[in-house]
């Protein structure tokens, strides 16, 4: 059949409406039109089952055959299962009635591809099996082959198959298209067989694609799940670490959790600030940085952390090291290099008077500036060994008064907006 040659007409979008001639056969030109439209349509089917149903329906409509069926390999059953069948009453095989395992003679004749009873088109023809069984040479000289032919014949009898057309993808047998007799009892023409082969090949391609996509989607889902799981473990590790730090310092109980919540509330008001978009994942970096901002306190001696009274200048110098220690602890973790930078600078002041590097203005990374405000606010409204706690109103007055010197005015405004909306003290454990 001339499948490739000639100029093909544009795809017929009405795939199922190809006209038949009076004698019930479609003409050569129509095959080509039909095949082109069919292969275009196949690409659109996401589920192989829908595609199979379309093929069976089309063959049933286009050619007068007493029955048509498709077997498809199902990995989970390790067998070829009847997916769809159409035909006259009593000949439509109910779905599930056919299950051929990989050792079935009918499957082996295709999967081993060794039989010379398969024509060069790849089709297994019932008539060829009968001719083989009548051949005395085979009966006498090749009894194994004779038995094999008998068992193949039996399988074709069960299916009432006249033709079996394999669907291969690469070297794998994906399925078999089973065709019964023509209603008028005639043999299939070469053109019709070519039509089935092309249809089967296109179908194999589409089925293989659909299976690949399905596998791929499954892999993507698995990876997503894995990512979510790992991410959850990571965040919870950070939270556990933060809780461990808080536990060492009796005066800062719950401090990390509150600071993190203030930071997230401030961040909500910073939507659209250009600097936010310079972070690959702003919210997450902010959350982790806030959780771990005091991780460096691990390196500060207990007697200083829990000292009941004002710190000496030496002790204060010691405390000041915590932001540097924190950054050093996180330094080996490549994925947290952003976080390490924010932690290093969370004690910087907007006017350059902070530590450890004395950075000023926008040279201080944004998240560090946010943590600075949140951290200071929580410190003010909490009792510390060296001073009494301030009221929330007093603390806010102090934030305002230090806006532009200790704190970034933009962050202070964001904090005030969040406070007015009730997002700062709302739903939070009070210090």
């Amino acid at each position, binding site marked *: 059949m001339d499948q490739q040659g000639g100029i093909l007409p544009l795809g017929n979008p009405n795939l199922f409406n190809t006209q038949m001639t009076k004698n019930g056969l479609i003409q050569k030109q129509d095959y080509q039109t039909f095949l082109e439209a069919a292969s275009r349509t196949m690409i659109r089917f996401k589920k192989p089952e829908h595609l199979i149903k379309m093929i069976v329906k089309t063959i049933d409509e286009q050619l007068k055959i007493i029955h048509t069926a498709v077997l498809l390999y199902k990995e989970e059953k390790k067998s070829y299962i009847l997916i769809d069948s159409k035909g006259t*009453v*009593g000949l439509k095989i*109910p779905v*599930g*009635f*056919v*299950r051929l395992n990989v050792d079935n003679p009918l499957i082996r004749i295709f999967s081993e591809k060794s039989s010379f009873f398969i024509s060069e088109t790849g089709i297994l023809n019932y008539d060829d099996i009968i001719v083989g069984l009548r051949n005395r040479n085979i009966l006498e000289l090749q009894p194994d082959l004779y038995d094999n032919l008998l068992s193949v014949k039996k399988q074709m009898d*069960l299916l*009432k198959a006249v033709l079996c057309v394999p669907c291969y993808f690469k070297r794998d047998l994906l399925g078999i298209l089973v065709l019964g007799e023509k209603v008028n009892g005639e043999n299939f023409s070469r053109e019709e067989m070519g039509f089935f082969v092309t249809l089967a090949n296109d179908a194999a391609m589409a089925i293989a694609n659909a299976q690949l996509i399905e596998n791929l989607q499954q892999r993507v889902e698995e990876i997503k799940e894995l990512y979510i799981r790992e991410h959850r473990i990571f965040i919870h590790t950070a939270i556990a670490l933060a809780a461990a730090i808080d536990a060492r310092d009796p005066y800062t109980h719950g401090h990390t959790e509150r600071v993190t919540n203030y930071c997230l509330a401030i961040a909500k008001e910073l939507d659209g600030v250009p600097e936010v978009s310079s972070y690959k994942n702003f919210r997450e970096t902010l959350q982790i940085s806030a959780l771990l901002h005091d991780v460096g306190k691990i390196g500060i001696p207990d007697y200083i952390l829990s000292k009941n009274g004002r710190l000496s200048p030496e002790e204060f110098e010691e405390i000041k090291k915590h932001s540097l220690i924190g950054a050093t602890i996180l330094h080996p973790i490549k994925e947290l290099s952003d976080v390490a930078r924010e932690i290093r600078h969370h004690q910087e002041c907007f006017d350059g008077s902070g530590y450890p590097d004395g950075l000023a203005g926008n040279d201080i990374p944004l998240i560090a500036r946010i943590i600075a405000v949140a951290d200071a606010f929580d410190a003010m409204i909490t009792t510390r060994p060296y001073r009494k706690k301030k009221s929330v109103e007093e603390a806010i007055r102090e934030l305002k008064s230090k806006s532009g010197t200790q704190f970034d005015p933009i962050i202070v405004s964001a904090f005030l907006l969040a406070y007015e909306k009730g997002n700062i003290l709302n739903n939070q454990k009070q210090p």
Partner: protein
Amino acid sequence: MQKILVVDDEHEICDFVQAFFKERGFHVFTALNGDEAISIAKKEKPELVLLDIKMKGMDGLAVLKHIRELDKFIKIIMVTALEDQDKMHEAYKLGAIDYITKPLILDYLEETVGRNLKVAL
């Protein structure tokens, strides 16, 4: 010509199994429910009955009991879903001689019927 009665509440299955055994030289009757099955069994006296164990209305076990009361020589093969296999214990007690599981697989169907009627199909 040997007679087979196929009892299943699914039309499609009755039609197919009927055509399948007709081609193999049997006279095949079908019944879509228990009442129909019992009246055909009474009238036609089939050699063998393929009886679905799970049906709407009168279920397979009740039909089995009725048919056995009519005629002790009718061979009855139950058709059961895998998950209902435990009902076979009861079916054997009531006189069923064999069973075949659903979904029916053509090879087994042919083989089971052939074996019980002692004919080569």
